[in-house]
C-alpha cells in the first residue's frame, strides 16, 4: 500500500511540472515518504528512500533508518540518496555511524563520507565533521576519521594529520595518519615524522611507516 502511495506521489509531481525542473514534494508528501521507510516490505522501503531524494530535509530520517536497516539493497539505496542529498545534518548523523558496533555499517559510513568528499561535498560539511571526529575520545572513531581523509581534498588535511602524529597518544591513530602521510606528506611533515619516531621508538610499525613517509617526501622533493 505504501508503495502505491509513493508511486502516486511521484506521478503527481511528475505531471505537475515540466521534465527536468527541480521539484520538491510538499511537507505532507515528505512525511508520507518518510513513513514508507518503516514499511515491513523491503521493496517499499527502498522505493521510499529513492523518492526521498526530493525531500531536502530527509537526511536525518534516512540515517535513522540506515542504522536499523538489515536489507542490503535498502541500505545501498539510502546511502546513495544520502550522498546525493549532501545535507550537512545528515553528514553529521552519518559520521555518528562510525561509532556503531556493526562493522558493515561503519564501513558503509566511511565509504559514504569518502564519496561525499570525492563528489565535491557541495555543502562543505565533511571537513568540519572530520575535524570534530579527530577530537573524539574513542580512538577507533579517530582512526575512521583519518580513513575518510584519504578522499578529502582540503588544504588542512596534512596539517590535521601532522597534529595527530604530534599529539595523539594512541599508537593506532598515529599509525593511520602515517599511512596517509606516506601518500600526501610534504616537507612540512618531516620534523613531525622524526618526532613521532622518537615518541614511539619501540614500535616497529611506526618506525616502518614513518621511514617510508620520509623516504617518499625526500624522493618527491628531488623530482
Amino acid at each position, binding site marked *: 500500500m505504501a508503495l502505491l502511495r509513493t508511486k502516486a506521489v511521484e506521478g503527481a509531481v511528475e505531471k505537475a511540472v515540466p521534465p527536468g525542473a527541480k521539484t520538491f514534494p510538499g511537507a505532507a508528501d515528505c512525511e508520507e515518504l518518510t513513513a514508507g521507510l518503516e514499511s515491513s516490505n523491503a521493496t517499499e522501503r527502498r522505493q521510499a528512500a529513492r523518492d526521498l531524494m526530493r525531500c531536502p530535509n530527509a537526511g536525518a530520517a534516512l540515517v535513522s533508518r540506515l542504522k536499523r536497516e538489515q536489507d542490503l539493497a535498502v541500505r545501498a539505496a539510502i546511502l546513495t540518496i544520502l550522498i546525493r542529498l549532501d545535507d550537512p545534518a545528515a553528514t553529521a548523523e552519518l559520521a555518528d555511524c562510525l561509532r556503531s558496533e556493526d562493522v558493515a555499517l561503519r564501513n558503509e559510513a566511511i565509504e559514504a563520507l569518502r564519496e561525499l568528499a570525492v563528489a565535491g561535498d557541495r555543502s562543505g560539511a565533511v571537513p568540519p565533521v572530520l575535524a570534530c571526529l579527530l577530537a573524539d575520545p574513542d580512538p577507533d572513531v579517530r582512526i*575512521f576519521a583519518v580513513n575518510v581523509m584519504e578522499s578529502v581534498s582540503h588544504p588542512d588535511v596534512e596539517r590535521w594529520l601532522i597534529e595527530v602524529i604530534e599529539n595523539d597518544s594512541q599508537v593506532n591513530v598515529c599509525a593511520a595518519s602515517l*599511512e596517509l602521510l606516506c601518500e600526501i606528506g610534504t616537507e612540512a611533515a618531516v620534523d613531525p615524522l622524526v618526532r613521532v619516531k622518537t615518541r614511539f621508538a619501540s614500535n616497529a610499525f611506526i618506525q616502518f611507516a614513518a621511514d617510508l613517509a620520509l623516504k617518499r617526501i625526500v624522493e618527491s622533493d628531488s623530482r
Partner: protein
Amino acid sequence: MKRVLIVDDAATVRMYHRGILESGGFAVEEALNGIEALEKALEANYDLLLVDINMPRLDGFGFLKEMRRQEIPQPPAIMVSTEAAARDETAAYRAGANCYLVKPVRPSQLLAHARLMLGEAGR
C-alpha cells in the same frame, strides 16, 4: 614455501606485513579488500590468511563468511584490526578466524602466530 594471502586496504600495512612474512620464509600475495580476496581464494590455495577487519567493498568478517557460504576451503585465518575491543574479537572468531591480533603487530608476534597457525611452532 607456505603461501599467505594478506587482505588489507592499507598499502603501508600490506608492505609492513609482507616484509615480516617474507623475512620468515613465507610466499606472500595481497588483496585490497574482501571481494578481491575472494577472487584470489577461488583461483589459488593459500596456507594462511592475514585479514584486516575494516575494508571497503567487503570487510574481513564478510570475506570469511562468504568463503564459508561459497564452500571455499578456508585455511587458518589470522584477523588483524586496530580495534582492541572485545566485541570485534568475538565477532572475528564467530566469522571463522582462528586468531585475533591487534595492530600494530610486532614482527616476532606475527611470525610466531603465523607458524603456530600452520603447526610449525618452535621453528
